[in-house]
């Protein structure tokens, strides 16, 4: 009984702090100042081991590495142009870029280890690590450089030595001016889809073609759904085509979006679910084999390029630079947790339905006087704006039940009054 009463007492302290914070901010609202300067987000990758989010952009070659526990942000500028895909493998960051190269750098030190390219290599939108985990398959738009090349090429590089182990261009000729495609390896087969309209199947060692299937669509990307032995192949018209690996034939299709599907992935913990993102601004979860839609996350028409998952959190990125964080755990529908913006040298995280935010550059926000709709100035405004800036916001927005977060422990004596309203 006394413990229950004690909890009630603890809650009363938390309640008064929240109440005092609201009272202090009454008549003011908080507005971001530089969000229109956001570079568009091209690729997102969540790295669970370090609880970090990796973000690349369309307008520049910078890769941001954001610690979701502390908010600390690092970056590397080793690519001159857009990093099209990023991933982490064995504590090394692998990036494929429009500068026609793939780089491998150490996650902690960012020290470069491998630089994979050759004279004829075009833009590289995609890579896939081999099943033996000793090589990486790289999808390249070689027709950018080689005028006689009419198809996309796949290169295989050793992840140990950086040696080029093989190359194939037998992926079918382009059927449009829009280059696209992707590759993956499953059960000792290398699969490739591209804007040729072909799904081609290769030997992953020799890279010789074994079989191919003409789907006659501008194919963009695909993923494997091992639970059903399927490849889910997305095209530029919003369709997902299912390819039955065992029967070696198409097994159905479904129109999932009204616009280009930009990314498709199998759910990491739900084997019967695939996830699609689209230029129509939505991300949808589909239960196979019936394509039953279970989650619908809407970013309000944002041109979505990418998404990643942190347990039940869906993190999306697109053309306007907003990184939306949705909680998909609620069966009634996903809810928006907050929005992150990654600027060139700083980050800003806004918590949905709150005046609290987190930024490592306070000039990313301003305090607005609700009566005048003008920015408030002076020391009091500066103080209140600082009050709204809380590191705990990034943890609250990105928190999931599985987080092992020592920061949630009791803070030290005499923690800053007012400020710990949010902790």
């Amino acid at each position: 009984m006394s413990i229950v009463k004690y909890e009630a007492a603890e809650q009363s302290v938390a309640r008064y702090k929240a109440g005092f914070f609201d009272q202090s901010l009454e008549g003011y609202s908080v507005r971001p100042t530089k969000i229109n300067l956001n570079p568009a987000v091209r690729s997102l990758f969540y790295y669970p081991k370090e609880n970090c989010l990796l973000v690349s952009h369309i307008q520049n070659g910078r890769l941001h590495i954001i610690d979701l526990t502390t908010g600390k942000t690092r970056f590397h500028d080793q690519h001159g142009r857009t990093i099209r895909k990023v991933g982490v493998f064995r504590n090394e960051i692998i990036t494929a870029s429009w500068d026609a190269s793939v780089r491998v750098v150490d996650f902690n030190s960012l020290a470069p280890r491998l630089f994979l390219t050759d004279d004829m290599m075009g833009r590289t939108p995609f890579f896939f690590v081999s099943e033996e985990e000793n090589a990486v398959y790289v999808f390249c738009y070689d027709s950018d450089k080689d005028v006689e090349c009419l198809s996309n090429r796949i290169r295989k590089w050793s992840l140990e030595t950086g040696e080029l182990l093989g190359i194939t261009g037998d992926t079918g000729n382009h059927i449009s001016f829009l280059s696209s495609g992707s590759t993956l390896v499953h059960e000792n087969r290398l699969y490739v889809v591209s804007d040729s309209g072909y799904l081609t199947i290769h030997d992953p060692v020799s890279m010789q073609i074994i079989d191919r299937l003409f789907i006659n669509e501008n194919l963009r990307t695909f993923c494997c759904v091992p639970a059903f032995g399927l490849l889910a192949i997305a095209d530029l018209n919003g369709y997902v085509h299912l390819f039955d690996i065992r029967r070696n034939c198409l097994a159905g299709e479904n129109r999932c979006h009204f616009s280009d599907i930009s990314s498709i992935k199998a759910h990491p913990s739900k084997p019967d679910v695939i996830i699609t993102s689209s230029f129509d601004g939505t991300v949808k979860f589909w239960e196979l084999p019936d394509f039953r839609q279970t989650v619908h996350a809407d970013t309000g028409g944002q041109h979505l390029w990418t998404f990643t998952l942190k347990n039940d959190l869906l993190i999306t990125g697109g053309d306007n630079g907003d990184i939306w964080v949705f909680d998909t755990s609620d069966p009634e529908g996903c809810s928006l947790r907050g929005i992150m913006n990654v600027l060139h040298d700083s980050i800003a995280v806004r918590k949905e339905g709150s005046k609290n935010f987190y930024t490592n550059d306070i000039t990313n926000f301003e305090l607005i006087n609700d009566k005048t709709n003008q920015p408030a100035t002076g020391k009091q405004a500066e103080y209140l704006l600082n009050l709204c800036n809380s590191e705990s916001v990034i943890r609250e927005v990105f928190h999931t039940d599985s987080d092992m977060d020592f920061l949630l422990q009791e803070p030290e004596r005499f923690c800053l009054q007012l400020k710990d309203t949010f902790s």
Partner: protein
Amino acid sequence: MNEIKKASDYYPVFLDLNDPDPGSEVKPLATLNSFLANSAALDNPELINMDELIRRGIKSNYTPFQCMVLLVKNAMEGHAFMFHGLLPAELMEKGTILLGNDTETCNVLPLDFYDNFFAIYADGIRRGMAMIAREFNIHEEISLDALICFILGNQLQKFPVSALDIFDHSAFFTSRNNTPREENFFYKISGIVQQVIGEIFLIETVNDLYEAKFKEMIHGIVSREQVLARVSAKLVMANDPAIRTEQDLEKTYFDYIVTAAMNPELRKGTIRVLSFLFNSPKMTPPGNLGAKIKSLYRSISKNCRETHTVTEQELRHPFLDQSFMDASLIYNDHALNKMDPFVQYFSLIDILARIVNYRKTENLPVVFSDFTAMSNDSFNQSLTDEDVQNIKTQFDKKVTGLRQVNFTESKAKHVRDEDLGKVHHDYLQLQIDYLDEQIREILAKIKNIMYDKGIKPSS
């Protein structure tokens, strides 16, 4: 409450050279005050020149190794003066962790010195070592790399040189020495940990400054929060149908307060910042580091003997008492991962240095019997370069986290910026008023509930 006198983590060369009886196990003091009263060194920004330093070191019966440490300390003092404008006496007062004016950054002097060492000071030290070799008839070459890594890595520069007579210069002969890679590796680990200790010092200093500046307001808020929590609990009790009378309520309330006070599950304790770095489950330290930690702890214990034997009501040396408690806290905490034993080890060295320096300046005997605990042997055994990098990353993450849970940046702003501090003060007062209002409302509710219960006939 009287403020505890703190001891410096640095013992300057001028006191080393005034140590009247170096070389014996139990040493009397050299007085800082007598030096300050009659000191040419403070007027001489070039500090002590090398020839003079070596001459006086030899005259003081220091060993070759001790003379070499004097050289390194003297160069570091020169560095502190040139780059940070600090004279040795000021360095002794402020310590080797130098806080920036913004109170948000800190500079760990030995690391700063090491970064510049080979570019600026190495040639001079080599010449000094050659002089020492001539004076002591040493014919073998001594590795400067190994020596500097050993001294700064083990933080020997913090101690009185007279305490270092057990070390043998022959361990640093080029012919016998470890490879430079191993020496640098050892120093890297030590440097990383020293930076962490520096960051923790900054966090604790900002906490202290904040507490000093807003002490009354904070105490006012904390005490009112406790009252609010208690009256909130009392409100829950008042709503309990089983409680019918004022006496029932007071008895239950009293029981609750006693239970909460007795039950550690319900009680919030004061947690020293450093303790955040240690968590269970226990991990065995690499190599013989565990034995070294134990040995250092014993050495601290011996040098805090007054703490164990005090009989007067008032402690004569509260600094020693506090230091021993800090050391015990660190020593008894469990290490969670590879990096924690290193923090324990270097934190204990830091505490030992302060204790020894305190004893020297307070004219208390010093015992150095366990100094053999220090060496670089332990650090080459089980860590790879990748481990070092991971340790650095993990430390970085933890220090960032510590700054966050302690609101160091915000506190520093309120401490540094007078205007912002005044606004903060005003808001703290508003918060107190707000709390008072909340408490009054709850008390009124309790009164009404009990009044209602009182007027209802019992069934």
